């Protein structure tokens, strides 16, 4: 097993106040290791999104701690947490959240631009990231000109372009048909083969479990089970295509 990249220790989270107060997470312990694709599964309202927000340094836990590469962000202000996110975290969303007025390449480049990386080097990196997800031919396309699967791959390219340590994916296949969904998972599994990176995928889709190295189940704000995958490597994972092979698979 590779070194831990992100560790959540005894994380609890209480949301709201008064009559609306909800204990969203209770003493959650979770470790993401390099070279692994971890899945977090659970029903609606189980605390998945809250945990994802805390692991993504968007929400501060009520108690407990989250460390990334051994670095704690306890008591960090909003700007400190934003810095941790831009340096270590790549995010993939269920509804893509691409910028509709930017091209695919520009959408990817935004992730570098917020880090202060601009110019031709950033452009080249964004083109390379799009090539990694099989979208070299869509560099100048706008989101409205792309299918859902293609848009999600742009979002993946945006998440990986700055080589973050952790990639957090929230229901990345929920808006896609099964063919596109599997292709997206294949890309994520390939990314997770890099020992310096860890991928966490939140999903309810049990058909995707074969892509994972480790599965955590969450219910009522508690991790109720951890289940390593059958093999040491994800079943479906193939090396990340260096070219446009994915395009052929997903159309």
């Amino acid at each position: 097993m590779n070194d831990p990249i992100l560790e959540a220790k005894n994380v609890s989270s209480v949301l709201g106040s008064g009559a609306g107060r909800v204990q969203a997470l209770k003493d959650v312990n979770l470790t993401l290791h390099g070279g692994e694709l971890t899945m977090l599964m659970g029903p609606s309202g189980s605390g998945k999104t809250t945990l994802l927000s805390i692991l993504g340094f968007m929400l501060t836990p009520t108690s407990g701690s989250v460390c990334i590469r051994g670095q704690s962000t306890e008591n960090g202000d909003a700007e400190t947490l934003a810095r941790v996110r831009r340096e270590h975290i790549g995010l993939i969303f269920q509804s893509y959240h691409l910028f509709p007025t930017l091209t695919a390449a520009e959408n990817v480049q935004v992730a570098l631009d917020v880090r202060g990386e601009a110019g031709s080097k950033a452009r080249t990196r964004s083109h390379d990231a799009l090539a990694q997800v099989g979208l070299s031919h869509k560099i100048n396309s706008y989101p409205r000109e792309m299918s859902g699967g293609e848009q999600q791959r742009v979002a993946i390219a945006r998440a990986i372009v700055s080589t973050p340590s952790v990639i957090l994916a929230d229901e990345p296949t929920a808006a896609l048909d099964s063919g596109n969904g599997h292709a997206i998972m294949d890309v994520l599994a390939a990314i997770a083969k890099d020992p310096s990176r860890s991928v966490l995928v939140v999903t309810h889709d049990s058909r995707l479990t074969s892509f994972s190295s480790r599965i955590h189940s969450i219910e009522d704000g508690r991790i109720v089970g951890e289940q390593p995958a059958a093999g040491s490597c994800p079943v479906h994972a193939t090396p990340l295509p260096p070219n446009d092979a994915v395009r052929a698979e997903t159309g």
Partner: protein
Amino acid sequence: MPLNFTLASRNLFHDRIRFVATTIGIVFSVVLVMVQMGLYLGFGQMVTKMIDQASPDLWVMRSGTKCFEDPSLIDARKRDAYLAVKGVADVNALVIGFSDWHMANGAITPVFIVGSNLKGDGLKPWNVVAGSAQSLSEDGAVAVDKTYSERLGTSGLGSEAEIRGHAVKVTALTDGIRSFTTTPYVFVDMSRARTYVGIPNTYANYFLVKLKPGANVDQVRHDIEAQSPTNEVLTTPEFRDRSRNFWLFGTGAGVALFAGALLGVIVGTVIVAQTLYSSTKDHIDEFATLRAMGSSNRYIYGVIIYQALLNAVVGFGLASLVGFAVVYFTSGGALPVVITPLLMSAIFLLTVVMCIVSAFAAILRVLRIDPVMVFTK
């Protein structure tokens, strides 16, 4: 080009109807400011036209004289005494005042008489386009501006009329000597000017003092004032400022022009603020995504500020074209709109500040964004 600028410009131009509406609002606002301030400058220039044209080293006038058109009288017999002051090269009396111009058809219109010594450095007609200023030494000769032909019932050189029962004849025509009061100027010889405005020969309204090279201005002023305690002595810039301040602020005209300009700024600020705020709300998911990706507040503010600056540049550019058209069409009028490069620069700066101030509401909105919303939308 920073990518947040690209994002700002694409978002701004993406919603064309909103962009056009905003631009119209900014253009309206900037043109209003431009015209009001242009009128302010034009008015300021018009009210001091006679002072600028005469431009002696010193003006001697009755203490408390408010402006060039103020008909307060001074003792004309003091001329020799002033000439004797050390450092004084020449002293010329100036007589001004309102009178009535009786046309051949019996109609009457008020005129403003300007009478000076034609042989000295007085205030003689300029921009003479027909006849000559020297002709004013002839009996009954007057010079008027050709733009007032209809008003005065004249048809050019040789036209006749009466002032205070005295026959006058137009012997010189000028071009562009217009009065902001709309009362036509009539240039005459000083001795007849007294007759036309009804003051004794022993009085004048001003003395225009020319100094010898190297003369001590303050000493000359002091020496002249010492001779006539009821008079005061001003330099041309001082008299210009006093006259301008009286007409612009003493009468409230300048305040009204500034109030109009302020209204323009307020209208523009509200329009831009409303647009930026609604645009920010429409794109709130994008701002939340940027925040979730770890962008700093500064980066996100950059998007909004760039939009504000783009609004400012486009709005100001179009407003400038309208402004230049207004300048062109008012240039021959009694009260031209004057737009100087300095005024343009100041209004551009004001437009930028106005648009940036307008961005505050939008910035406050993005400050409240919770990046977690990207998971729930």
